[in-house]
């Protein structure tokens, strides 16, 4: 007997598998791919956790969820306790459990991951959140009204989190959203098969229960500018979380031909406007037989998988680096491969070729090789001279990134932005160069992640609260 110390438990080296729709079936429907753990599986998975004292996993979570604590509760079957623990730090666990890039965040630092597969933190988180969504929502505590009004511009994860936190503190919050539905990228960008829209809308429903007022069809910079919200609008502070919604194009010839979409347009038509249900829904989309998606991030994977579901015979990811550098979540790349998405690595187009009617017929590409590491630490792609070849395609989706939409920065006097047009905000407080105006999420950092945007919303809520408390 090794007196006193705990008996060593045997560790299952692999994560409990996530049940999924069969690839061949799901590649043709829009239902969620990953079906979620059963109660047995989640308890088993939670029991893989070693409950490390120093909890290295926490340093990988941008909002510092108390991972061992919530997993410990789940391991004992106390999902009510687990979800409460989660919600202390994370306002949207049903979303994060599904879309966080866990392999580069929490799970990257998991002790188990050194020898085996890490604990499936995200999957356990998702189970707990879905458990709550299936039943009655937790009662949410709201402090007495402070009489202070805050305007939140944009209803993506940063705005939603900021609004929730401020409402709980007793402030009266109004969200202004440009589109006709709140949720930001969670609604218009990330597809139904990865993040069901009813999950997002339930989370938003909770926010309304907190007393948050949501004005849709409200484009700030057009119906009112930020200064008007502050002076005359009756708001004591403003949070800007307008995201990175401006699509970049390649600036190659032929890019305005018919059949070339930005990923934003392709995904917005499909997700927000439900074009996959055309003609029941009124918005059309056109997907050809062979689709090329340019880029290698989550957005590109989503577009390529969406193309298959819309009926494309072939869907290609065209990426100028190699598989190792793909910035998308691992799970999405795997799922895309299983579904039959094809990959053209070390390839980039130089010109889009179209016919007399202006419709895309092909794409001229160059082959690349990997050179020296660049500023991002990744090996940079170098074109191989004379390697031109032609790829027959009839639809091209450009998914090479997005910048900040200039509507709000361009109409807000005294708001400092950087060269790329991102709003400059103190990472520790969210404060901008303009008193009473805070910002966070993709509009500050450039296209990043849901959880980082949420973290920024939370940080800003804290400083806005402090600012309002001092302003009597």
């Amino acid at each position, binding site marked *: 007997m090794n007196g006193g110390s705990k008996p060593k438990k045997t560790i299952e080296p692999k994560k409990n598998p996530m049940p999924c729709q069969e690839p061949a079936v799901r590649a043709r429907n829009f239902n969620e791919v990953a079906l979620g753990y059963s109660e047995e599986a989640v308890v088993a998975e939670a029991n893989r956790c070693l409950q490390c004292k120093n909890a290295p996993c926490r340093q990988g979570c941008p909002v510092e969820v108390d991972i061992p604590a919530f997993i410990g509760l789940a391991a004992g079957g106390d999902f009510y306790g687990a979800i409460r623990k989660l919600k202390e730090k994370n306002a949207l666990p049903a979303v994060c459990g599904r879309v966080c890039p866990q392999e580069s965040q929490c799970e990257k630092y998991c002790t188990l991951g050194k020898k085996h597969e890490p604990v499936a933190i995200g999957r356990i988180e998702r189970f707990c959140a879905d458990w709550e969504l299936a039943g009655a929502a937790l009662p949410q505590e709201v402090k007495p009204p402070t009489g202070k009004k805050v305007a939140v511009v944009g209803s993506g994860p940063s705005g939603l989190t900021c609004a929730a936190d401020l409402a709980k503190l007793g402030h009266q919050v109004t969200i202004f959203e440009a589109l006709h539905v709140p949720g930001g990228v969670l609604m218009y960008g990330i597809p139904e098969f990865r993040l069901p829209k009813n999950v997002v809308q339930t989370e938003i429903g909770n926010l309304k229960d907190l007393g948050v007022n949501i004005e849709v069809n409200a484009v700030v910079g057009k119906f009112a500018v930020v200064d008007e919200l502050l002076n005359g609008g009756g708001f004591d502070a403003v949070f800007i979380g307008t995201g990175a919604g401006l699509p970049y194009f390649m600036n190659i010839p032929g890019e305005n031909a018919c059949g070339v979409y930005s990923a934003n347009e392709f995904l917005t038509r499909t997700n927000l*406007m439900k074009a996959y249900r055309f*003609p029941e829904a009124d918005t*059309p989309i056109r997907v050809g037989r062979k689709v090329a998606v340019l880029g290698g991030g989550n957005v590109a994977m989503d577009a390529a998988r969406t193309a298959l579901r819309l009926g494309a015979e072939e869907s290609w990811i065209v990426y100028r680096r190699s598989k190792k550098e793909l910035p998308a979540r691992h799970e999405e790349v795997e799922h895309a491969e299983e579904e039959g998405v094809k990959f053209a690595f070390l390839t980039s187009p130089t010109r889009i070729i179209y016919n007399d009617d*202006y419709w895309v017929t092909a794409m001229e590409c160059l082959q690349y090789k990997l050179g020296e590491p660049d500023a991002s630490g990744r090996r940079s792609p170098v074109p191989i001279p004379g390697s031109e070849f032609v790829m027959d395609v009839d639809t091209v989706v450009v998914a090479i990134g997005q910048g900040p939409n200039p509507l709000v920065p361009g109409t807000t006097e005294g708001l400092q932005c950087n060269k790329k047009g991102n709003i400059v905000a103190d990472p520790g407080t969210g404060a901008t160069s303009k008193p009473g105006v805070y910002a966070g999420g993709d509009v500050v950092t450039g296209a990043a992640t849901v959880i980082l945007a949420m973290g920024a919303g939370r940080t800003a809520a804290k400083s806005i609260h402090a600012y309002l408390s001092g302003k009597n």
Partner: protein
Amino acid sequence: MYRIVRKEALAPTLSLFEIEAPLVARKARAGQFVILRINEEGERIPLTIADFDRARETITCVFQEVGKTTKELGTLCEGDYLQDFAGPLGLPSHIENFGRVVCVGGGLGVAPVFPIARALKEAGNEVIGIMGARTKELLFWEEKMYSACSELWVTTDDGSYSRKGFVTDLLREVIEKKKDVGLCVAIGPLPMMRAVCGLTREYGLKTVVSLNSIMVDGTGMCGCCRVTVGGKTKFACVDGPEFDGHLVDFEEMARRAVIYKPQEQLAVSRYVKNSAHNCSCGCGGGR
């Protein structure tokens, strides 16, 4: 929800709606547009702000029934509600005193050109209005245009009212006769704007056109509305909708405008088959 407070049938398949939208009405300016959705299944369609009334808190739009959504819109009556109505979008027209200007409205284009003519006149310009339609019964807002212009020239393609001919015929006459025209604003069907630009280019007369590219969000997020202007890609919803007509690639615009033709035809035939709306309020919506 946004209430339709007034409906007027201007011509067969051409209607006017006055819509209650306080936030849009407060800020609306000539040249801007709105994006609306009829109901939950609806698509987002842009319509130009043809007039606004800050006191009544309303926006006036004039629309032509061309496809499924606009036909369905035509069946709505006073007192009905629109699901969504966002605006004012796009950049307002650039208004200054140019001296003498010509404002050309072709067909439906009379509606969007009207507030621009009025604003130009208020800025001290001598505004010469030219309006035209295919035939007499499609002409509307002659009185209104007249009030916004110093003089108004009217034409119909078939000669059924006023002069026979195209707006370009009148425009040439005006330019020749009046000289010193500082600016031309031309709004109407694509071929008409293209023809006007072809003409004014001969005279070196700067011409502003308003582009109706296909849109989704109207906030610069999707790039669907992109047009080539002076060799550069612009987003019509945020960089426009007005551009220097001499720099616009009309050929590309025309091709992009019919991207969804097969889908539009399917939608409209399906709609006509399924819709048995019988409107009895006398507004003509039951058509």
